[in-house]
């Protein structure tokens, strides 16, 4: 940092900005992508607040039905295509080269292209709001024929379709770069079975991106053609074909945005407990089987279509619990006999385990077609997947942010604000989404701006709306914390948490070439090995120096 910093700051500001935005250093690409994605997270969150405000009471108070349809469409689309999926790739682009001890990703320009495609996708999707017919409004899934030129006319929906194509291409670019790096650029000694759990999480996510995202490119390209005169899907099998293509992408994507953050909490728990991660071979096997299995469960989104073999998809979907259970066992095993320090990252990791469990268990519930026939497309499902995405991915993202922020910025975040951030997010997640389980069970369907006044749903909806604003407050606390840290944060040093993996063996932030030298790599916690060895040697030396007066002669 010190060697380059003066040279860079003497350049004019616009040159620095252009340099930063066109940099082929994986850390810059990753930071640009992550900041952009977090910006979309805030935007998507604002849309959610507007929706929750409308739903607080029956009847229409703030907006018309059409506006509401645009809001939930762009909320879901933003959160998946523009926030979670790019964020999953961004954290990997930053950390994986550091964790496997290399200088940069393979094909950095492709990864950079991925960043710019994301920017393009965001611009296209949000431009829709300025047009006469509004933004895309047929849901983040855009089922045909609702999404065709008769069902949803207007340029906004065309732009939405193109935006999804760009976002999907963005994910494929960044994932291929990352995957190639993982396969080809590991430091000497860094075998596959010595890669940190976070890197494994990224590996399986990238595998799913390169296998599943092409399906959405196909679905959306055909949809765009369909909307513009080709009428690809206009036959009795067309809508079902669209759903197969879409969910072949749409289900794996929820795991793509899950594994990197599962990896984050694994690293956070191991570091904060002072122990290397428990059950490593089981965890690696479970991630690989998990990702393979998750490519075979898409039909559970189609249980009510009578067009898929429900038994098959019920079996594969329920079997997910076996591999998912291993995460919990290994997380508990890592805490077992540990010496846990409750830093903010650890709180978020525990919050992940506690809250994701609600989403995971209700996932087993809806994997049963007979139960799904009732709760499908109701608020029960909304509650279920928000526990996996907010309780899981977002909690895991914050665990990762609090864990790696010092490495990326060189400065510490405030722990008191961090704890406020955690407790409000956990509380908000409970208050917002628990009522939705009850609303869904009682039959309140999704994607409605209005609901009957005589069902007694108003109280639960009002509670949920209050919860959404608690979550918003939590994110605000984080933004304050981040801004404060960048200006006033205490310097972090290379290894503030006494961590286990290679990224902590270099300066914070790392130099452009990442490492001046690497420690020997003998396990998936190489830095911990070095520390243990040094401590053992120190002890041996101390023992050798100390007079052996206390010991009795044999």
């Amino acid at each position, binding site marked *: 940092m010190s060697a380059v910093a003066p040279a860079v700051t003497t350049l004019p500001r616009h040159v620095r900005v252009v340099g930063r935005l066109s940099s082929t250093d994986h850390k810059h690409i990753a930071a640009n992508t992550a900041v952009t994605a977090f910006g979309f997270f805030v935007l998507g969150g604002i849309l959610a607040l507007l929706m929750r405000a409308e739903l607080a009471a029956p009847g229409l108070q703030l907006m018309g039905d059409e506006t509401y349809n645009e809001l939930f469409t762009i909320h879901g689309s933003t959160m998946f295509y523009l926030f979670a999926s790019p964020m999953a790739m961004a954290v990997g682009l930053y950390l994986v080269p550091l964790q496997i001890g290399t200088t940069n990703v393979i094909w950095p320009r492709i990864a950079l292209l991925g960043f710019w495609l994301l920017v393009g996708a965001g611009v296209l999707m949000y431009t829709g709001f300025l047009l006469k017919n509004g933004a895309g409004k047929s849901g983040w899934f855009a089922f045909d024929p609702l999404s065709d030129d008769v069902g949803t006319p207007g340029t906004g929906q065309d732009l939405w379709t193109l935006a999804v194509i760009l976002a999907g291409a963005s994910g494929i670019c960044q994932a291929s770069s990352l995957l190639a790096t993982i396969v080809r650029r590991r430091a000497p000694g860094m075998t596959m079975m010595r890669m940190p759990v976070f890197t494994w999480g990224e590996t399986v996510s990238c595998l799913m991106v390169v296998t599943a995202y092409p399906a959405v490119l196909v679905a959306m390209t055909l949809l765009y053609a369909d909307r513009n005169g080709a009428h690809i899907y206009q036959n*009795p099998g067309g809508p079902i074909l669209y759903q197969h293509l879409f969910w072949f992408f749409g289900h794996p994507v929820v795991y793509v945005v899950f594994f990197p953050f599962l990896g984050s909490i694994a690293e956070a728990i191991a570091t904060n407990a002072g122990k290397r991660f428990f059950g490593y071979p*089981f965890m690696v096997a479970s991630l690989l089987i998990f990702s393979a299995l998750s490519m075979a469960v898409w039909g559970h989104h189609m249980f009510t*279509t*009578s067009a898929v073999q429900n038994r098959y998809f019920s079996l594969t979907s329920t079997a997910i619990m076996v591999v998912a259970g291993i995460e919990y066992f290994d997380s*508990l095993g890592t805490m077992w*006999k540990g*010496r846990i320090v409750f830093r903010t990252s650890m709180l978020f990791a525990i919050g992940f385990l506690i809250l994701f469990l609600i989403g995971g268990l209700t996932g087993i519930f809806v994997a049963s077609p007979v139960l799904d026939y009732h709760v499908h497309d109701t608020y029960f499902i909304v509650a279920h997947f928000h526990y996996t995405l907010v309780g899981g991915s977002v909690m895991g993202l914050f665990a990762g942010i609090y864990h790696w922020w010092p490495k990326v910025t060189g400065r510490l975040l405030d722990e008191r604000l961090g704890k406020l951030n955690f407790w409000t997010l956990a509380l908000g997640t409970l208050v917002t989404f628990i009522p939705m389980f009850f609303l869904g069970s009682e039959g309140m369907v999704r994607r409605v701006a209005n609901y009957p006044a005589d069902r007694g749903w108003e109280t639960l909806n009002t509670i949920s709306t209050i919860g959404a604003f608690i979550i918003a407050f939590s994110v605000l606390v984080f933004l304050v914390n981040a801004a404060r840290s960048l200006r006033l944060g205490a310097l972090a040093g290379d290894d503030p948490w006494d961590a286990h993996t290679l990224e902590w063996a270099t300066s914070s932030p790392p130099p452009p070439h990442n490492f001046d030298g690497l420690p020997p790599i003998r396990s998936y916690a190489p830095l911990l090995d070095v520390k243990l060895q040094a401590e053992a040697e120190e002890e041996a030396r101390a023992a050798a120096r100390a007079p052996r007066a206390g010991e009795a002669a044999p």
Partner: protein
Amino acid sequence: MSALVDTRDGYRGLFDIYWPIGVGVLVLFWLLIIGFAWRYRRREDGRPPDVHEHSLLEGSYVALLACVCAVLVYFTFHWMSKDVADLPGEPSSKGQTDVALAATPKPAITVDVTASRWNWTFQYPKYGIRQSGNGTQIPTLVVPTGNVTFRLTSIDVIHAFFIPFLRFKRDAFPERPTNFTLGFHEVGFHHAWGECAEFCGYRHAYMQFNVDVRTPSDFRRWAAARRAGQPQRLTPAMGRQGDYR
């Protein structure tokens, strides 16, 4: 032999298995997570013991999970095989026969349900009756107690026919009919308790219908009156109970 289809049975039966197991596992793991976090909080300096595997315990745990999974899948399949609504194979416009369907008594009536943006139309071919809303007012599905066969289709986009109190929904596709049999058990009027569950655009939220379950004789009286020209009664979407009578 049980004469009447009951779509609520499967939901109830599986709910009673899944829910206690789910709540039990939730509480168990919450206690373990919080218990471990508290028990192993840092109380002294130095490194903890380097214990990082227990393959026997972990292997047994995986085997236990696989057993729980097998039990859940068994019960799900068990209820699916009893469920006449779960008809295997591709539905065809000619209608569908199935072992389970054949085993049930002949349905009293057939209703053709046509979903459209944003309206439901119920046609009773045997009686020549047509119930349909008008965009702002919703129609009523009138059925006798007993089994009723539905032929569900859509004229535009995908909709879904959802009756929460029967714990049942099916998607309605254009040019691709879906057939199923539902059993209606108790007489009663269910205000706006039929819903469209699949997002279908602008007025999706208002695409509701009333469900009016009558005794067979009462139903026949209603059908005769309707056939004789009595107009259908519509109620406002999102309206309140009591709008109908």
